[in-house]
């Protein structure tokens, strides 16, 4: 019979939490890069480019993340890639994050007075320079709170990758549970670890929000 001590449980959960952190970071960075591209399309002058981008965003915001992960997981072989939980999880969460981040940043762009664009144009800047130097820095700055808030969502969303077989915190807790039969303790610990990761970020987002409101 296989036995676990309490320390074994905690240690294995913490080791698994590394994957949760790594996946969150990968998806946040990847999602930021793809989200930026989507943002360019979303605020472009071309009508069709805007439509495609808003369709992309509506698609990811209108379907469950779990389904997106399943499609990614079972669709990988069709794209000639090996079926792999890590790839499916990282790609799935990246696309998911890109849609939400693009929409958050778009709201930042939309919040800027049109005069900002005019000012840029009057300085002789062309479109990309305007975006890079004037519009995007301001859009990012006013959407810092929702961006951090979304990072919290993303960290919590990594739990779903356990269902497609990625060995993160929740999946490890399931395996431990089956050897120890103490769901109350094991899931309680998992919740605590997530809380420790997310709570400081939530508080930080709140502070940013208050600062923004005060300005």
């Amino acid at each position, binding site marked *: 019979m296989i036995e676990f001590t309490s320390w074994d449980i905690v240690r294995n959960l913490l080791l698994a939490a590394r994957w949760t952190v790594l996946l969150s970071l990968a998806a946040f960075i990847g999602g930021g890069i793809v989200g930026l591209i989507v943002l360019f399309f979303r605020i472009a002058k071309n009508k069709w480019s805007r439509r495609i981008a808003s369709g992309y965003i509506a*698609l990811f915001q*209108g*379907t*469950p*993340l*779990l*389904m*997106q992960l*399943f*499609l990614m997981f*079972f*669709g990988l072989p*069709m794209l000639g890639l090996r079926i792999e939980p890590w790839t499916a999880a990282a790609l799935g969460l990246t696309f998911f994050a890109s849609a939400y981040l693009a929409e958050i940043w778009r709201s930042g762009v939309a919040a800027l007075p049109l005069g900002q664009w005019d000012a840029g144009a009057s300085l002789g800047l062309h479109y990309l320079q305007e975006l890079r130097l004037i519009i995007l820095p301001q859009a990012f700055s006013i959407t810092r709170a929702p961006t951090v808030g979304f990072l*919290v969502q993303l960290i*919590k*969303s*990594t*739990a*779903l990758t*356990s*269902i497609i077989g990625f060995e993160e915190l*929740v999946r490890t807790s399931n395996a431990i*549970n089956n050897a120890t039969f103490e*769901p*109350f303790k094991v*899931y*309680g610990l*998992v*919740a605590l670890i*997530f*809380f420790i990761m*997310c*709570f400081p970020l*939530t508080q930080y987002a709140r502070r940013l929000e208050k600062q923004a409101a005060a300005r």
Partner: protein
Amino acid sequence: MAFAWLPGALGDIAHGAATTILLIAVTTLAGTLLSILGAAGRRNGPALLKRAIACYVEVMRNTPFLVQLFFIFFGLPSLGIRLDPILAAMLAMTLNMAAYTIEIVGAGLDAVPGGQTEAALALGLRPRQVFVKIVLPQALKIIYPALTSQVVIMMLESAVVSQIAVRELTYEADMLQARTFRSFETYFVVTLVYLALSMALRRLLVSGGRRALGAGVS
């Protein structure tokens, strides 16, 4: 891709979709009610209640829904609380959604000018009447769009409750793919069903909100 299995599966998909709709309908009603009570308690309740509500909000907002669901379904029985999968799902969804909507409702209550309460009190209305008849309808109107988004988000998150054997849409999809070995096609079709559901839900809420709360709701 092959879809020969689809005609025979439509009944199962429809049945799953109906359960998903039932889940979100119950959650919306219970969650909104709970968040109104929670938001009111957080503003005017005794200090201990305020702290308890704040703790509840933080715990729910900073832990994954899946873990909350497992905790309620697999963990609570060791305290003697045993719920049917569908009840456990409804409870988990309601508790999760309320943690977000308490803050939304609270913001709405804050946005109603204080002068209105004073005026209504001066007219001789009791505080409870003022809250229910004057402040709350205006607050709901202000926060209605945010509330709508939260309901749609919760509907999409409900896919997870398939993990505790609730026979909703994702559960039916899992069953189908186990039978047909057509994983990608099955989830592809079901994803489209979810997309249609979330669009329909949004439209329904917007038009329903317009009727109930008057013009100006978007």
